[in-house]
Structure formats: structure tokens, C-alpha cells
């Protein structure tokens, strides 16, 4: 039986909402019956993207983070958007260990984690025009 479902959620760019965001997305995708590892992968990737939106996009000031999630059969597409300052050099930002906030103990591993834990990652951004992260995860590929 084919599945199609969608949800959208938006919230203030407060760090307390990082847990809210990953738990909400995990609850929504649980209808695709992911295994524990897949669920954990999605939670971690969402947490990375939302943390980036809060720290880098909005520079810890108030803004709105938007998440849209679409489920199609055994695939989840998750889009996370902020209207923050945007990324000047996406290629550089995606490099492992690169961070623009050197004094803040950021590991610079956010994009690497998203890339590793999800099946697809697209980063769309322009300085001043916010950032959109699109991630796709296929479920049941390991133990179908």
C-alpha cells in the first residue's frame, strides 16, 4: 500500500526547540516503521540542521525555523529553512571540521553528520537570503 503524508511545523529559533524539532520529526516518520538506527540517524541530522539555523542562520537572535516533512512510501524528505544570514561559501561550510564560530567549541561536523546519516543532502543558501537544507532518507534498505 502506498503511503503519502505531509506535515509542517515552525518555531522560534531557541535552542530549547532543538529537542522539540528532532522529536517531532521522529514521531512523524515513525509511521514508516523505521528501525532504531534509522530513527536515530534522522533525529541527529535534524538536530544538526536546526542547530545550524539557530546558531549560524539567526546568530542566536530571534527568527522562525520552518520544517516540512513529506513521506512517500518508504522515503522521508525533510526540508529545514531559516530566513537568517545565509552561507557565503557552501563548499567550505560543508568541509569536515570547518566552523565559522571558532571560539564556541563548535566541532564543524554538522554537515558531515547530515551527509553521513542521511541518503541525500542539498544545501541552498545565499548571503542575506536564508538557508534551506533538503535531506532525504530511505527506510528499510538495511533489513528490508
Amino acid at each position, binding site marked *: 500500500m502506498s503511503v503519502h503524508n505531509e506535515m509542517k511545523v515552525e518555531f522560534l529559533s531557541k535552542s530549547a526547540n532543538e529537542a522539540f524539532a528532532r522529536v517531532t520529526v521522529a514521531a512523524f516518520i515513525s509511521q514508516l516503521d523505521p528501525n532504531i538506527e534509522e530513527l536515530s540517524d534522522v533525529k541527529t541530522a535534524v538536530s*544538526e540542521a536546526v*542547530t545550524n539555523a539557530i546558531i549560524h542562520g539567526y546568530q542566536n537572535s530571534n527568527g522562525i525555523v520552518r520544517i516540512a516533512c513529506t513521506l512517500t512510501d518508504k522515503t522521508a524528505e525533510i526540508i529545514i529553512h531559516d530566513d537568517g544570514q545565509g552561507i557565503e561559501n557552501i563548499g567550505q561550510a560543508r568541509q569536515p571540521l570547518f566552523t565559522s564560530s571558532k571560539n564556541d567549541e563548535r566541532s564543524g561536523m554538522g554537515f558531515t*553528520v547530515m551527509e553521513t546519516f542521511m541518503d541525500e543532502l542539498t544545501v541552498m543558501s545565499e548571503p542575506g537570503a536564508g538557508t534551506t537544507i533538503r535531506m532525504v532518507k530511505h527506510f528499510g534498505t538495511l533489513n528490508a
Partner: protein
Amino acid sequence: MALQLEKRDRSLIAFIDGELDHHCAASIRETLDSAYQQAQIKNLILDFSKLTFMDSSGIGVIIGRYKMVQAGKGKMLITGISANVLRLLTLSGIHKIIPIVNNVETALKTV
């Protein structure tokens, strides 16, 4: 997130209970650093057996504490990790610089 601290000889053992993300990172960092700065503490053991979630903010916290312990000429070890945390530690290369052992008792014998 709750942090329980225990001191044994010259080692500080920190049991992190709950989630380690950007939101919790600052308070964990402050608590660990002030406890470590107490006299006679040299080594740091981070126990993650009650950790339910960690993302790359946790990597930042671990690397920051590793630098502190290095400066204090002590040893740092990590115990009780889940498969997910192991993936993060491997991805960031932390597993090459900080020993990962099964439990706190083993860690205490190693320091």
C-alpha cells in the same frame, strides 16, 4: 539532562544522563570545567551509558574537555557509548585520540 559527578583519587567521573545537544552543551561544559579545576583532579572519565541522544555539539564538548585535560597533564577516557555515539566519535576521529572503554571500572584501571 542531568550530570552526576564522582571523584575517585585524582579522577573525575561524569555520568551524563539524558541528551547532549547544543542546548545542553554550555551547562555541561561549565559544570565539568569548574569541577575539574578543583584541586587534585587530573583525569576525566565521561560515562555515556545513560545518554539518550548526542549530536555534533557533543563532539565539540568532548574535544574542548580533552584540551583541558591535556593542559592538566591528565588522561581522558570515554565509557558506556551506544552505536550511534560510536559513529559520531568515529566520524570526527575522536576514537583515535581518546580511549573508549566498556565501563568506569576499566577506565579507572587505565588512567
